[in-house]
């Protein structure tokens, strides 16, 4: 090694630990920014699991995969005991007006009377509500909490899962663009 080279390498040598530190700090910061409660669903891109549940409001009717065919659906997992569900209820009421998709409820691990009371008091944003008190459909959908919302395309394929409440920001930034994409896809296949 020439004298000059040696000088150069020793000049920047102090940078090595600095770079290592910065890389580690970056990695840890990235980790901090991630939400550990958001477990990615292995069901994305797959057909919605088979299910058949009685409708909460009309037990003579069932809610099943057939109800997902032909249009974009938001399948929203909710329960009367879940406070975040109450928080997102207003947004859901707004979304219920849209003609771009249908809102299907999945009433999860709930008491029927409590669930009915909530619907009576705060209004019903759902087209249909599957009643799943013992988590029989929930387990197949990989539900581990409420609220969770699945975006299902008109072929019954799960395209996205949102964990946690839907508020206007979540809607604008994540869900609305996905719905737009699905609509565009649909238009493309039709033409």
């Amino acid at each position, binding site marked *: 090694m020439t004298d000059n080279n040696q000088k150069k390498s020793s000049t920047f040598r102090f940078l090595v630990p600095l770079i290592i530190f910065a890389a580690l700090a970056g990695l840890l910061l990235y980790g901090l920014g991630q939400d550990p*409660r958001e477990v990615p669903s292995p069901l994305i891109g797959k057909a919605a699991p088979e299910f058949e549940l009685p409708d909460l409001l009309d037990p003579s009717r069932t809610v099943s995969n057939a109800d997902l065919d032909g249009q974009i659906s938001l399948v929203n997992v909710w329960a009367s005991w879940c406070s975040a569900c109450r928080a997102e209820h207003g947004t859901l009421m707004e979304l219920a007006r849209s003609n771009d998709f249908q809102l299907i409820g999945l009433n999860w691990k709930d008491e029927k009377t409590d669930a009915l009371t909530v619907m009576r008091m705060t209004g019903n944003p759902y087209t249909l509500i599957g009643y799943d008190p013992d988590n029989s459909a929930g387990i197949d959908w990989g539900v*581990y909490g409420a609220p969770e919302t699945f975006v299902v395309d008109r072929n019954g394929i799960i395209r996205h899962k949102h964990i946690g409440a839907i508020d206007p920001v979540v809607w604008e930034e994540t869900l609305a663009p996905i719905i737009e994409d699905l609509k565009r896809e649909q238009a493309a296949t039709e033409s």
Partner: protein
Amino acid sequence: MRLFRPKFGARARLLLLCGLLAISAAASAYTLEEFHFTSPEQEEQFRVLIGKLRCLVCQNESLAASQAELAQDLRQEVYGMMREGRSQEEILAFLTDRYGDFVLYDPPLKPSTYVLWFGPFVLIAIAAFFMIRSLLRSRAGPPAELSENERQRLQQLLDTDSSVKDETS
């Protein structure tokens, strides 16, 4: 024997209490009473299985330890599948199909987890490489690279130093 009692009694009692508390805490962590097994092997198999599975609500607890309702559901599900005679692999596959690899405490070895499995060893290897290199360098370091002038000056310094010593002593 009687003599020792006052001295050790309190501590022994405390230890016993702690032990009992620990046992009762472990026992109440989950209740196996709700499950009935046909053999001790089956019970053992069940314990092992739910120990391998993570509760998704309380994340750092296994299905065996968690009190969450979801964990209860999943324990029930695992139990049901076991009674149907499904193998451990089938049961684990059932759960990973729905909840992803996250539900397992031991992540499976596949390309997306290579960093997780091999990363620490790679880092250790890199650290070892640099450590050995610097050790070898310092051992084969430059002891004889003094120029003639420097050597003379060093000798001079050593000489004056010893002369100072001589004067003081």
